């Protein structure tokens, strides 16, 4: 009823965890049976370890949060030797979110991470919190295409490209990465935002700006998923502020073939499983037998 196949990645449910919000998985294993997830998209990984940004890294905003973690992670080697073996005992696809400073670095990471136990790669070309790479690739279609081509040259596992909402025309970006060989697209990454402390007149975040996530971004995410899903043939993974099954169903109707739960994990550690169960209930109530019957079915004809 819930099983989906996204670009060759077989998932028991269409509900994945969004990169950066679920650690590498084991962090939540005392709350959630990881075997019940559609897929785990692990914390953004870089070739070498990174310590992330200085100063305060999160700020709460109305129905959302800003983060400027800055891709802190132990690096690809430690992921491969320390973390991936621990994930082997779970029957869940592991998708590694990767970031590079250069096009070549994305290629190197793709080669390194195309190993047994890694079901797919998600290219982070949309991190708003790092100086080099990151969003620089995600806002320029030619650079984005170059990254995708380089990765595709170096791997045979499915490649998902995570798109930034901080662009004028997300449809153009989606089409460009599709042409470059992306097997799927995921959207949205966080929206660039800011908060200021009125007592000190200082920005709240050490990095001054950060990425907005949570329910506050959902309408923007949904609109972008709907636009992109109409324009590309590859599967779309929808995310941005999903807290409940109802939210997830909206994304599916808008054209997402799968969804990811992000910030909601922080509020409700069971959110990813709760959303999947809720989709099942929704299908039952509506007399449907397969989640795929929802995908892209929003009736958007103007009457």
């Amino acid at each position, binding site marked *: 009823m819930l099983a989906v196949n996204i670009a060759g990645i077989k998932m028991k449910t269409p509900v994945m965890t969004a990169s950066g919000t679920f*650690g590498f998985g084991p962090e939540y294993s005392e709350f959630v049976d990881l075997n019940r997830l559609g897929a785990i998209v692990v914390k953004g990984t870089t070739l070498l370890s990174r310590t992330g940004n200085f100063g305060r890294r999160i700020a709460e905003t109305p129905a959302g949060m800003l983060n400027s973690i800055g891709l802190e992670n*132990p690096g690809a080697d430690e992921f491969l030797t320390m973390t991936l073996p621990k994930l082997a005992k779970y029957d869940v696809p592991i998708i590694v979110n990767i970031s590079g400073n250069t096009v070549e670095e994305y290629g190197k990471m793709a080669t390194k991470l195309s190993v047994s136990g890694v079901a797919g790669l998600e290219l982070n070309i949309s991190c708003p919190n790092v100086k080099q790479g990151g969003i620089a690739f995600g806002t320029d279609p030619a650079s984005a295409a170059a990254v995708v081509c380089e990765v595709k040259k170096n791997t045979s596992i499915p490649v998902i490209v995570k798109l930034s909402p901080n662009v004028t025309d997300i449809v153009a970006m989606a089409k460009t990465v599709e042409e470059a060989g992306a097997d799927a697209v995921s959207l949205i990454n966080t929206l660039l935002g800011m908060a200021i402390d009125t007592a000190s007149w200082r920005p709240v975040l050490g990095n001054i700006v950060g990425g907005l996530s949570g329910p506050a971004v959902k309408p923007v995410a949904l609109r972008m998923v709907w636009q992109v899903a109409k324009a590309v043939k590859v599967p779309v993974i929808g995310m941005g502020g999903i807290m409940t099954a109802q939210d997830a169903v909206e994304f599916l109707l808008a054209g997402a073939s799968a969804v990811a739960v992000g910030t909601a994990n922080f509020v409700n*550690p069971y959110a990813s499983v709760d959303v999947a169960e809720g989709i099942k209930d929704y299908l039952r109530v509506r007399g449907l037998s397969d989640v795929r019957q929802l995908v892209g079915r929003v009736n958007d004809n103007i009457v």
Partner: protein
Amino acid sequence: MALPKMVVRSKVLANELIGPLVWRLTLSAPQIAAVAKPGQFVHVRVMDSLAPLLRRPISIAEVYAAEGTISLIYRVVGQGSAIMAEAKPGSELDLMGPLGNGFSLEAERPLLVGGGIGLAPLVYLAQALCPRPVTILMGGRTKEEMYWQDIFKNLCQNIYITTDDGSLGQQGFTVDALDDILAKGNFDFVYSCGPRPMLAGVARLAKLHNVLCQVSLEDYMACGVGACLSCTCAGNDGKRRKICSDGPVFMAGEVLD
């Protein structure tokens, strides 16, 4: 499959103002009370709506396992804690925990050093260390903030106090009084929680006197379980530490100079 961590609905038993802007919230949370260790925290969802969205990490201040109750002593500093202060007896709060790692309970002759709201986790620590003789050094800005005396008087053998303005105890910071206390006493463990500069001073003096020292750190947290990396800090071995899940209690030498 055993999943040891939990999210529970807990009933508010009492919520009282005990000092300037500081409240004690007593909750019925038998599952948490049964397993919580001193130094651990709960991640509180202050209301079920989407704003404020995030949980608030609050250290566990007291545990009465037989009654199945815990208390949180917190200062109203923002939107979340202001909402907590409105919680009425009989209402319910959503708690996640207990999270993080607690204090070592190996000490025979412990010295507790706390500043301001950092004294909260030391209450449960003092409870757990009893009947060992516990000495505490507590600091605050003025005597009005030293309501902590009433809380610690039945748990500690010796109480030393400093206030910034000298209105009670020795004038100055806890660190100003600590050197003498360590020199006179025969302590085998220092436990500390409070502002970061205070912790650095406590750690330095404990090292000077060759006494083991644990500190409890705090930071802004989103997940509380080591996933979001909001609260990481540098360890002295060059590796990163997550305050929520590697801490919040650390050996002082692990994270401070």
